[in-house]
């Protein structure tokens, strides 16, 4: 693949991102603009922005690569990442918006009336956010190396710099425009090439890629495929609602009702997008089987157009997919940076640093730390680190949100115990998987995909400890429940309102 087209495509995406961000700068004046775009984003724009933010490197490159390498079972990842939004819609969307809080720690403090819960939530937001940012920077490095042969740290640095400039000057308001643009860019970057690829495939007599063990579900090399599949389902279905960059976007809706409608549009946009990556994976079985042998399956989306179409047309189509991949890195990194910077500026820097300046300083910290980690710790694998973030989020914030919204008797002691239990066990399991050799049998399966046992454990801990500490019930729990669940149109006393 010729480097020129790829480099031009990546630069064009970066420039377009900065230009659209600059358009948003003009509207960003207040602290509320920076954090939540002044809570005035309409469902269609907001849903595009949520879709643009959510579809990361793992969705754009990873799904096709996993399907190419391992077959049908991997289709559960995109299904789970979409179904996660259905659970978010049903259990969390409207009450979370109505809680009137900026961030997850804000929600935890408002609901449980405890500073300690806030502290633990802040640490977890920063931890999960950095875990998710690190593979984005690494994936950017790998992709830029594939299309242009640059050293691996350069792609991450480029993404970090563009994100920082945009966040620095425009905050949430300008990021909203950027991410909405990037959803449609990502969809186009997969949709247009796939039409050419299918035409070529049809011209070759439409050979079937679907055959053998690759097509059978639950037939993979894993020791316990049924357990592994269900653990992936638990992590993705329940982890989505606990990701800090997903949650923070809900505060930008005008009210609870629009939060629901936005989520519904997101479901449609994600379903549309996820139809495409499996096609690349399946075509890769026929046209790029050598990638499986070399372990470079993540590049199948970038390689396939040049291989199948050929000539300048193929190069241009490959450059288009490279542009889409960079849009994926930029949008997800932007969202994560906003979420992490919001928490750092509110909770770590303390009360003396407030407002826009503190937010900008926090954004620098939020980008630089995972960038240094990504450069120094190479080769942890994009999909695995993202999987870790989902498992940790499902084992900590999911029970906090679900029980906090639907169960009056949750106490701060219960929430802390549950988040510590779920977070430490899921974190330890994946760290053990990442650093050590693959372990055989049940132990290996339980450690590689911990969500199926850590999530129920976190829920159980929260419930049991809450029931044991009834004296610590928040004083204003009834008023909080009124605020979370009643429609805004009814005039009610909802307690003190934030912004």
């Amino acid at each position, binding site marked *: 693949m010729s480097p020129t087209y790829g480099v031009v495509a990546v630069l064009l995406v970066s420039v377009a991102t900065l230009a659209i961000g600059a358009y948003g700068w003009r509207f960003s004046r207040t602290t509320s603009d920076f954090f939540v775009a002044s809570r005035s984003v309409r469902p269609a724009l907001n849903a595009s922005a949520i879709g643009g933010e959510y579809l990361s490197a793992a969705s754009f490159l990873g799904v096709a690569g996993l399907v190419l390498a391992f077959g049908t079972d991997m289709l*559960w990842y995109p299904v789970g990442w979409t179904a996660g939004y259905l659970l978010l819609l049903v259990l969390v969307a409207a009450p979370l918006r109505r809680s009137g809080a900026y961030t997850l720690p804000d929600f935890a403090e408002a609901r449980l009336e405890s500073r300690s819960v806030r502290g633990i939530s802040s640490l977890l937001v920063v931890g999960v956010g950095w875990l998710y940012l690190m593979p984005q920077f690494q994936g950017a490095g790998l992709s830029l190396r594939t299309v242009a042969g640059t050293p691996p740290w350069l792609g991450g640095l480029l993404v970090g710099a563009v994100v920082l400039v945009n966040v620095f000057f425009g905050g949430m308001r300008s990021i909203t425009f950027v991410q909405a643009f990037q959803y449609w860019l990502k969809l186009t970057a997969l949709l247009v090439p796939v039409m050419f690829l299918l035409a070529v495939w049809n011209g070759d007599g439409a050979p079937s890629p679907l055959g053998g063990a690759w097509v059978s579900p639950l037939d993979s090399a894993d020791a316990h495929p049924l357990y592994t599949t269900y653990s992936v389902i638990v992590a993705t279905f329940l982890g989505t609602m606990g990701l800090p960059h997903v949650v923070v976007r809900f505060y930008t809706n005008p009210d609870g009702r629009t939060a629901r409608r936005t989520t519904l549009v997101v479901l449609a946009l994600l379903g549309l997008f996820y139809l495409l990556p499996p096609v690349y994976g399946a075509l890769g079985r026929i046209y790029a089987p050598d990638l499986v042998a070399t372990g470079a399956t993540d590049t199948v989306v970038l390689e396939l157009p040049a291989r199948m179409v050929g000539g300048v047309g193929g190069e241009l189509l490959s450059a288009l997919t490279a542009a889409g991949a960079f849009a994926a890195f930029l949008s997800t990194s932007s969202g994560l940076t906003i979420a992490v910077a919001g928490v750092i500026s509110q909770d770590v820097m303390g009360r003396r640093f407030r407002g826009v300046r503190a937010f900008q300083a926090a954004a620098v910290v939020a980008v630089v730390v995972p960038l240094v980690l990504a450069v120094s710790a190479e080769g942890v694998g994009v999909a695995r680190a993202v999987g870790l973030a989902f498992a940790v989020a499902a084992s900590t914030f999911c029970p906090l949100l679900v029980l906090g919204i639907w169960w009056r008797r949750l106490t701060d002691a219960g929430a802390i115990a549950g988040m510590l239990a779920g977070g430490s066990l899921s974190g330890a399991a994946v760290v053990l998987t990442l650093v050590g050799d693959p372990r055989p049998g049940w132990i290996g399966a339980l450690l590689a995909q911990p969500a199926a046992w850590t999530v129920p454990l976190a829920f159980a801990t929260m419930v049991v400890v809450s029931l044991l500490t009834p004296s610590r019930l928040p004083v204003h729990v009834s008023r909080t429940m009124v605020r979370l669940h009643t429609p805004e149109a009814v005039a009610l006393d909802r307690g003190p309102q934030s912004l």
Partner: protein
Amino acid sequence: MSEPPLPRVRVTSPRTTATRRRRVTGASEIDAQTDLGEVYMSSLLRSQLRLALLVLAGLAVLVAGLPLLFTVAPALVDVHVVGVPLPWLLLAGGVYPFLLLLGWLYVRAAERNERDFAEVVERR
């Protein structure tokens, strides 16, 4: 000599019927956190939670049930619909319209629950 009789005083009852008509809405009961207010709130929460669990049950049976189905009936791989094996067709495409349908039904029903709640608590 007898004292002069006191002037006669007319005794009337207060106008109870006129003053007893207090206007109480469900909303003010909720604000005052009375037992009745709690009843309104818990009935809203119960109806929304029941709806959520109903949608989740649909998701659990029809989507999360698929791996079990594939285990019990591995021969489904050999069932081809328009040339594509059935598991592949379901997971790579068929699931998404179903998720959207569940979401749409949920939003409609949740907004109806909220309308009913608003009607009840704002009624005088």
